[in-house]
């Protein structure tokens, strides 16, 4: 069953299918696990690492990426048949940039502090490879609803990694989660120290490396050939 789904996405034309058919559910769940955009497809790493010092900005960033991937996939999929092939990159960039401007203005209006923390990284969603990659690989060849689901799924897959990395870094680095103290004061009195190194940018890379290691030792199929 898995093969016919991936190879012939538009074969079932005309047959009315329920909104959450098994096929669409797989589009949603796969990126969370076996085709995760960050650890398997190697897309969108740039912003994934820089915003993960604390949990709150990474959750906001994850939501922003979900919104942008989902709606730009939807829009591109609606107009996919009238985009001339030669200039499709520019058309995609224009759609994505418009979505990102909307998200950026929204963040500035409602969560100004977080938007200041994220600084240029909201703008960099435009060149986030997840968005472009999914537009090229999926939305250009599929109907709007599956593309929308695919966008949400990949955005969430990205968000999951972001949140995991930020939990590790915030817990070890400052002993807090979402700004609330987790490690009790008494531990500090007994000689516990926050690990300042985890706050530094390089540790984000190492944490992602270890996540990849764990995922690949659980799922042997993902191991790269020699």
């Amino acid at each position, binding site marked *: 069953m898995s093969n016919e789904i991936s190879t012939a996405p538009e074969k079932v034309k005309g047959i009315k299918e329920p909104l959450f058919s098994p096929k669409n559910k797989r589009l949603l769940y796969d990126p969370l696990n076996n085709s995760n955009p960050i650890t398997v497809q190697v897309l969108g790493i740039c912003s994934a690492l820089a915003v993960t010092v604390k949990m709150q900005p990474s959750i906001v960033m994850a939501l922003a990426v979900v919104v942008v991937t989902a709606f730009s996939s939807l829009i591109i999929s609606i107009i996919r048949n009238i985009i001339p092939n030669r200039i499709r990159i520019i058309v995609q960039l224009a759609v994505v940039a418009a979505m990102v401007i909307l998200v950026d203005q929204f963040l500035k209006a409602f969560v100004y502090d977080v938007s200041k923390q994220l600084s240029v990284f909201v703008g960099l969603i435009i060149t986030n490879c997840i968005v472009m990659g999914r537009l090229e690989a999926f939305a250009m060849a599929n109907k709007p609803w599956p593309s929308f689901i695919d966008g949400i799924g990949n955005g969430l897959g990205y968000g999951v990694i972001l949140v995991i990395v930020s939990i590790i870094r915030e817990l070890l680095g400052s002993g807090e989660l979402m700004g609330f103290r987790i490690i009790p004061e008494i531990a500090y009195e007994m000689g516990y120290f926050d690990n300042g190194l985890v706050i530094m940018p390089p540790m984000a890379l190492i944490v992602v490396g270890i996540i*990849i290691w764990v995922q690949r030792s659980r799922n042997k199929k993902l191991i790269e050939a020699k």
Partner: protein
Amino acid sequence: MEHVNLFIKAVFVENMIFAYFLGMCSYLAISKTVKSAVGLGMAVIFVLSVSVPICYLLEKFVLKAGALAWLSTDFATVDLSFLSFIMFIATIASIVQLVEMVVEKFAPALYATLGIFLPLIAVNCSILGGALFMQEREYATLGEATVFAFGSGVGWFLAIVALSAIREKLRYSNIPDPLRGLGITFIVTGLMAIGFMSFMGIKL
């Protein structure tokens, strides 16, 4: 002298890859051999130092609040800065196209080396990142913006060439299976970044 400081800061202290993780996707994908890494690195230096100054002029004379005052006093209150994302990415995409055509016409040898890497650069985060940092840090003159862009490009070049050299050696080492490929590349980059952190204490 200020320009030299800015250049050194952009190359080492605020390295695009090790301090901000910009352009990671192509950094990980194209760093398998030193030869292609050098090609991509050169292309990034080139495009960054051409497109960031143009974005600077655009920012200064079109997008900033009150920037249109040179046109007529009626426009003195217009603030177009919310358009900067779409303007910058359009500028970068068209410059990449233009650079590709010019290089193909006038320097066929260089074009053959850069080859497929040029079009890829339009979606490299480090270019847009350079433009957005230029906007956020409000560099005062065109010279500063250009030096910053060139320095960032050189920093990116150094990083990708160093990583590709390490990866060529890694091929002969005995790495645990699940860590092979992507995983070890991440960890190596992290260790390199820790090395680059030693530049952070330098006050320029």
